[in-house]
C-alpha cells in the first residue's frame, strides 16, 4: 500500500528562489533559511520518495481569469516551466506520472473534490521554485495540485485541510507500495500592496510554524479573513500548508523548522515526518 511518509511546507518567495539559483544560500544573512533548507534536502534524499504531491498556487503565469479554477490537478507526464516574466533562467520540465495522477484524480472526484483536470500545465515559481530548492534533479515524479489563493472567493482553510485528508485516502488506494511526500508551498506573511506593503508579521509566522504539527485542525478552523488579517493579503496563501498537514496522520514529528524574515516575506520551512 502506498503511503505518505512526510510533508514539507516551504515558501515560494522569489527572493529565496533567486538566492538559491544564484548560489547565495551560503551567505550569513541567508543562513536561518538555507541551513534548515540543507537539512530538508538531506531529509528528502534519505526519504527516497517515489512520488511528490505539490500543492501550490500560480501567479498569473499560467491560469487567467477567463477560467480560473478553485482546485486543478496536473495529469501529464511532464510539466514545462511557465514563461515567467523576469530574470528566471530556463529550467528543464518537471516530470509527472500520468497514470498515478489519473488514479489520484479519480479518487478525489469520487470524494467530491471538483478538480479541474489539466493535461497541459506550465508551472511557475509557486511550484517549480520550491521543488528545485528541495532537490535537483527531481527525485521523483510530481503531481501538481493548484489552489486559487489569489482572487476571492478562495477555498476555506477547512477545505484545504479536507483536501489533504482526501489526498491521503487517494494515496492509500494506489495499487503500489509507493513512498509519497506532500510539498505545500507559499507564505509565510507578506503584504505586497497598500499602505502596509512590505510588512511581515513575524509573531504570527512563528506561531503558525509552532502550531501546525500539533494543532492543524485548529488552524484549519480559522477563516480566510483571519489569515489575511494576520499574514497579509498575499501571505494568506499559507493556507495551502493546511493541505500538507491534513494529508499526514495525527502523529507527526517535526524534523526541520526554519524561518527568516527578510525583504517583504517571512520565509518559512517545515518538514514533518509521519508516525
Amino acid at each position: 500500500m502506498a503511503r505518505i511518509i512526510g510533508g514539507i511546507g516551504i515558501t515560494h518567495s522569489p527572493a529565496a528562489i533567486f538566492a538559491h539559483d544564484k548560489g547565495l544560500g551560503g551567505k550569513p544573512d541567508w543562513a536561518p533559511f538555507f541551513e534548515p533548507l540543507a537539512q530538508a534536502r538531506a531529509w528528502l534524499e534519505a526519504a527516497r520518495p517515489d512520488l511528490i504531491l505539490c500543492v501550490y498556487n500560480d501567479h498569473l503565469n499560467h491560469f487567467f481569469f477567463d477560467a480560473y479554477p478553485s482546485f486543478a490537478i496536473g495529469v501529464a507526464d511532464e510539466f514545462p516551466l511557465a514563461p515567467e516574466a523576469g530574470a528566471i533562467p530556463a529550467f528543464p520540465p518537471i516530470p509527472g506520472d500520468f497514470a498515478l495522477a489519473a488514479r489520484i484524480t479519480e479518487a478525489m472526484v469520487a470524494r467530491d473534490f471538483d478538480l479541474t483536470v489539466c493535461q497541459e500545465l506550465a508551472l511557475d515559481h509557486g511550484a517549480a521554485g520550491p521543488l528545485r530548492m528541495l532537490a535537483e534533479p527531481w527525485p521523483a515524479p510530481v503531481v501538481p495540485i493548484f489552489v486559487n489563493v489569489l482572487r476571492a472567493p478562495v477555498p476555506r482553510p477547512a477545505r484545504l485541510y479536507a483536501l489533504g485528508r482526501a489526498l491521503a485516502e487517494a494515496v492509500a488506494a494506489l495499487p503500489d507500495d509507493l513512498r509519497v511526500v506532500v510539498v505545500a508551498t507559499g507564505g509565510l506573511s507578506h503584504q505586497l500592496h497598500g499602505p502596509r506593503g512590505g510588512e511581515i508579521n513575524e509573531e504570527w509566522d512563528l506561531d503558525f510554524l509552532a502550531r501546525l504539527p500539533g494543532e492543524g485542525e485548529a488552524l484549519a478552523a480559522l477563516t480566510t479573513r483571519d489569515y489575511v488579517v494576520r499574514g497579509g493579503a498575499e501571505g494568506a496563501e499559507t493556507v495551502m500548508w493546511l493541505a500538507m498537514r491534513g494529508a499526514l496522520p495525527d502523529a507527526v514529528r517535526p524534523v526541520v523548522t526554519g524561518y527568516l524574515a527578510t525583504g517583504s516575506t517571512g520565509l518559512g520551512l517545515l518538514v514533518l515526518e509521519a508516525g
Partner: protein
Amino acid sequence: MPDFDPERDILPFDLAASRRGMRLNRLGHALRDPATRARFAADPAAVLDAAGLTAAERTALEGRDWRALLALGASVYALAKIGGAMGVPLPQIVREGRG
C-alpha cells in the same frame, strides 16, 4: 506588529476587482511571455494600444501609479509583470505602492 486591517490596509482582490481590472490583468498575463515582453521593449505604445486600456488605465500605467492601478482592479501579480516589463522590480512597486 499589529494585525492588518483589511478594510483600511488591503484592497481585496475579489470578483468585482477582477472584472474592473480585466484589461490590465490581461496585459500583465500577456507580458509573462518573452515575445510580448520583447515587443513591449521595442515599442511600448503599440502593446498598450493593443491592450485596449481606458484613458484612466493608460494614464495610471504610464505614470507608474501603482496605487491607482490597484484601485482600477489590477492584480498585484499583473503589476509585477507590467512593472517588470518597464524595468521596475516588484520590491520597488511594493515600496512606491505604500502611497
